[in-house]
């Protein structure tokens, strides 16, 4: 029971780290980036390629993953999303095009990794860091699990506090409320968008490195499965809410673990997503979503 609880907390932390970047971009600058999974995977893939030449430590791999994720995310934004936003008449129209554009662009890193690996699994066996398991009573805990949970908690708290209490966070939130007015108030939308995408990509890269160590192996397609989970976490928690995405991530992880231990693995997705659907019927904006305010 305790082991299953630890597993669920670790899984929830992974979902949270993955979804955090997506939620930040979507909730603030309105970019629903479906290339996020591909960026996540590619950050780990680059780590794998570099490890073939040199046995990097965990810290070095994390730094590499964050850098690759950030750069790739900014590149995708500048090359695709920014162009779409510039050439469409309003953000509503741009949203669908950004979504489709993200799906399309996701195919490029995917194809590159598939070509190089022949879709074989890849991992970090060459790294100088390998997780160590400690036995505490009946519980088996690895140092990596502790790191994942702590990293997710610290990052989520830091981002939530920054958004809530800093001037830049306020500026970013104002873009999320009304980009035009924010611009008129002196907020440099382009600069904030690029920084936000860089942070989102960096979070994806961090999640990728820790996740690869945790599961031992990724394939080029690994990011695609997590995209759907992240989307579900964000919708469940409420778009734009950091607390919401955290609750959504852990709710999904716990639901999956509960279903698996009681009903079997075949029902995990069906029941987990049904639970999410049930919640959304009661709260369409998500658990922490804000109702739109309209002047009458």
């Amino acid at each position, binding site marked *: 029971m305790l082991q299953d609880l630890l597993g669920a907390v670790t*899984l929830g932390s*992974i979902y949270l780290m993955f979804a955090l970047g997506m939620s930040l971009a979507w909730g603030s600058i309105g970019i629903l980036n479906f290339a996020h999974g591909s960026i996540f995977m590619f950050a780990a893939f680059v780590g794998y390629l570099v490890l073939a030449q040199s046995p990097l430590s965990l810290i070095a791999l994390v730094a590499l993953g964050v850098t690759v994720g950030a750069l790739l995310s900014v590149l995708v934004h500048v090359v695709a999303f920014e162009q779409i936003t510039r050439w469409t008449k309003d953000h509503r129209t741009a949203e669908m095009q950004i979504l489709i554009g993200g799906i399309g662009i996701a195919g490029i890193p995917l194809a590159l990794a*598939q070509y190089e690996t022949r879709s074989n699994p890849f991992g*970090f066996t060459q790294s100088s860091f390998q997780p160590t398991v400690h036995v505490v009573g009946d519980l088996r805990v690895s140092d990596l699990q502790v790191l994942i949970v702590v990293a997710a908690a610290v990052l989520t708290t830091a981002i939530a506090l920054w958004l809530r209490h800093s001037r830049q966070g306020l500026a970013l939130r104002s873009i999320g409320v009304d980009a035009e007015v924010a611009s008129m108030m002196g907020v440099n939308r382009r600069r904030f968008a690029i920084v936000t995408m860089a942070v989102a990509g960096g979070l994806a890269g961090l999640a990728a490195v820790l996740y690869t160590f945790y*599961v*031992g192996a990724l*394939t080029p397609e*690994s990011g695609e499965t997590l995209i759907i989970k992240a989307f579900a976490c964000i919708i469940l928690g409420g778009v734009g809410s950091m607390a919401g995405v955290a609750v959504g991530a852990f709710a999904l992880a716990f639901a999956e673990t509960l279903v*698996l231990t009681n009903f079997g693995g075949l029902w995990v997705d069906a029941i987990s997503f049904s639970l999410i659907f049930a919640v959304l019927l009661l709260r369409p904006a998500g658990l922490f979503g804000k109702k739109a305010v309209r002047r009458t």
Partner: protein
Amino acid sequence: MNANKLPWWRPVSVVAVVGALLAASACGSGEGGGAAGPESGDGLPPVVRVVSTNPVTGPAAQNGIAANEGHHLAIKEINESGFLGDTTIEMEEVDTAGDSQTAASELTKAITDDSVSAVFGAVQSESAVAQAPIAQNSKMPIIFTQAGSDGVVIGEYTFRLTPTMNVYYPILSKFMKEQGWKTMGILYTAATPSLEMIGEETLPAMAEELGIEVVSSVATQGSTQDFTAPISQLLKDDPDGVAVLLIGAANPTAMTQLRQAGYEGAVLGSAAAASGVLDPAGEDGAGMVWPVGYHPSMEYEASQKFTEAFREEYGEDPMFNSADSYDAAWFFARALKRANSANREDIQKALDEIAAEPWTGALGENLTFTDRILDVPGVVVEKTADGEKLLYYASDVEE
């Protein structure tokens, strides 16, 4: 003219266009129609064309590329040795990208091409099941390898050079008996029919015969990436042994997390973990054991000849897919020689004749076909810290 009434020629022209489109698609359809292939009669033409429909991109790319390599090697040998006299075989590779619809449409294109005599079918079961009825109905000889599920070998035009996994999996009984297990747990994926069958039927039956109690059986979806919770369920009753029947990256993940969960014993697996798939697990991958139709260490003369030729051609050890497809190409070549014709019907009859005789190739010696499926006895292989080791042959298993 009444503004609300359509002119008479509008609906007529729509019907005409739709009718023309339907007629064109029926002409192009491979189902019961389409081209008949090369003509029968005056011996073999200078070039015989065969199409390979395998995934060279997508999740099964490794298997598809390995299959094509085996085909290429065999065809190179056939052409260079003059096995068919002045006739050479030309193989066209088309990429199914692991998609069943693409596999079916590429097969249909081959069927409508008069110059194509036969097709090497897709290695994935889902794609093969989509292709088999099209090939059968269109009378196109199709030779599959792997693709071990029902609905693939369905008629006289369909052949497969590997049996379904459940036919040779029981050779693992010797290993299970030697381990002395009293209880076991089974973790399997429902994503592929063959592994689902092994997990739900074949392995429990083997365990029962050996007096081993299956204390846990955990099914997972294809989308499962973290196996912490399934493994927790698998090990909750502390089984003596476990089986992990998964595909792709799930294998190294499950082995890593199994060792982290404290299980240190042997693990029954499947050929889906072969050929480097377990490498990301490092030392944690050692100890998995599986049955497979071919391994580079096999000592049969024909197997060794193939292995050496492959190493010389490609600079690495062959995968089982390559051995299967190598034999598939030779099977086709022998049928061409027997038929002395590139006509599809003639080839089908010749394939049937050859399938009635003992078969010797990369997969073994004096093998037999049953209902157009090659009976490959197999070997058992163990993953070690520095590679793979052949443990024993099916012939070493006492009845």
